[in-house]
């Protein structure tokens, strides 16, 4: 039951997002720039990488994003990078170097996943699709994406109900046994296809021409430009200059 519940919770997070006054394209570009910067760090540069966490921290505070929810969300990225990096202490030149490279890999994975989470929490799916259209993303893909997103909740709930009903009929079983694989998923598939046909007919009746009208939402062009430029400079500085060391020197000078 955990998987459907988690999926529904994450979908609702995206539903509640948006309305931050920044153009979704600006949010998307800054996120891509940030992820590129994080990915480009060398595998032993933990000090530089730690500085990139400032972006996540500031946006979490600014947009009231729960850090606990975010950590729960990025858990799969943590697990995956840990699994890949676990061999580094054995195969790197020394255990310490391998441990450092493993830690760097895990932090990189978590920061990138957190950036994607914040992007969705900032913008929401529809404004993000509007930003993708601005970038000339094909309309077919956008329509499929939006339709899929619209029916995700309904189908996940349906699976949850089917699983509950099955468990109530067969208490004590773990997972679906082999003999019911085809009929269980097949029935869901048939219902989904029938639903898709009904959806298409009703869309046609309402004048669907193969495209959705998308709006980026209300936003301030000035704030969007300021947001992009400021974050661009900050990410560039964090990536290429030892900002923390410079701040430390400045701090000691002030204290003296």
């Amino acid at each position, binding site marked *: 039951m955990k998987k459907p519940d988690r999926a529904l919770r994450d979908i609702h997070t995206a539903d509640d997002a948006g309305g931050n006054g920044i153009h979704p394209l600006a949010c998307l570009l800054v996120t891509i720039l940030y992820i590129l910067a994080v990915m480009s760090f060398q595998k032993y540069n933990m000090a530089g990488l730690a500085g990139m966490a400032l972006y996540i921290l500031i946006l979490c505070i600014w947009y009231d994003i729960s850090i606990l929810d975010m950590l729960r969300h990025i858990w799969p990225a943590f697990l995956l990078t840990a699994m890949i990096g676990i*061999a580094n202490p054995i195969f790197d030149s020394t255990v*310490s170097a391998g441990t450092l490279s493993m830690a760097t890999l895990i932090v990189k994975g978590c920061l990138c996943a957190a950036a994607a989470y914040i992007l969705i929490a900032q913008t929401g799916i529809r404004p993000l699709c509007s930003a993708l259209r601005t970038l000339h993303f094909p309309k077919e893909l956008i329509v499929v*994406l939006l339709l899929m997103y619209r029916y995700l909740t309904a189908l996940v709930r349906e699976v949850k109900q089917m699983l509950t009903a099955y468990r109530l009929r067969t208490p004590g079983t773990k997972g679906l046994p082999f003999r019911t694989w085809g009929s269980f998923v097949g029935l869901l598939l048939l219902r*989904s*296809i029938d639903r898709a046909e009904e959806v298409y007919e009703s869309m046609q009746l309402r004048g669907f021409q193969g495209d959705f009208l998308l709006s980026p939402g209300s936003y301030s062009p000035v704030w969007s430009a300021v947001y992009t430029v400021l974050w661009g400079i900050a990410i560039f500085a964090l990536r290429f200059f030892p900002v923390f060391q410079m701040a430390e020197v400045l701090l000691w000078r002030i204290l003296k």
Partner: protein
Amino acid sequence: MHMADALLSPAVAGTMYLGSAAAAGYSIRKLRSEKEEQKIPVMGVMGAFVFAAQMINFSIPGTGSSGHMCGSMMLAAVLGPEAGFLTMISVLLVQCLLFADGGLLALGANIWNMAFYGCFVGGMVIWKRMTRNGMTRRTIAAASVLGCVLTLQLGAFSVVLETLASGITELPFGVFLAAMQPIHLAIGVVEGLITSAVLLFLYGTRPELLWNGTETGEGKSRLSRRGTLAVLAGMAVAIGGLLSLFASADPDGLEWSVERTAGMAEIQPEGGVYALADRIRAAASLLPDYTWKGGKAAGGTSVSGIVGGIAVACVCMAVCFLLRRFRRKPGDQKNNEET
């Protein structure tokens, strides 16, 4: 098999995006030429179906463990390879954005590893070829299992190549490959069985829903088979060339990985378990007097910025909290108007 952003270098991620974009461009062109607009809502709902079906755990007979389906082979068998591929892109995009399964910049690689092989190799090559003389229960089951096994093996092999080309892991090529392929062989068999069970159910109830590999009248491809092969070969050469270009320019590339794998005196994969155990012992004995790789500088850099980092973080957080107090919340204006 979803790759995170951290497992790829920007050059490899970009190259994989190019490859996936080329396949997506071909699929969109094919879909437009077929003029089957009614397929688009079906694609959307099928994407949601694949996502929802991934929530179901299937118990694997005789093992006590469970697995779940991936869906690209099933999408190809129901919608056809091109529409299936585009639907899988949407599934992967939603998984990446909403559920942190795979990274935003690793999306190109994930599309290639899961959607391209599943839909084009599994659907266009295996499913189409095995069912062209008519579908039977046997051909459907065989095509499903063979398609899932083969496409997962190809996907796992690509993950190994992409990770090593990015210089992310210290695992030698052979060890990494030996770790990835057998696991995905087992997963492929299970997924193949699930896919065949569902497709057989569909064949028994509504066989007209299965894609039989024939083109519709208007939907004949503008490219001949030879032309398609030429485009695919050209793409392979272009992608390979780009990848090697980036790898040679960047020490974290494929060249680096191969040189590192073959040239390290300490790693002796030929020695098997004994060499590995010897290496672990040697590394562990170095622990008391270790130095950070790259000399003292790396360790020094790691430590010297801590105080500065904490100071910067505190200032940023304080500014954020202060600014947030002055920020107008969406509900505030409404409340003021009401009062």
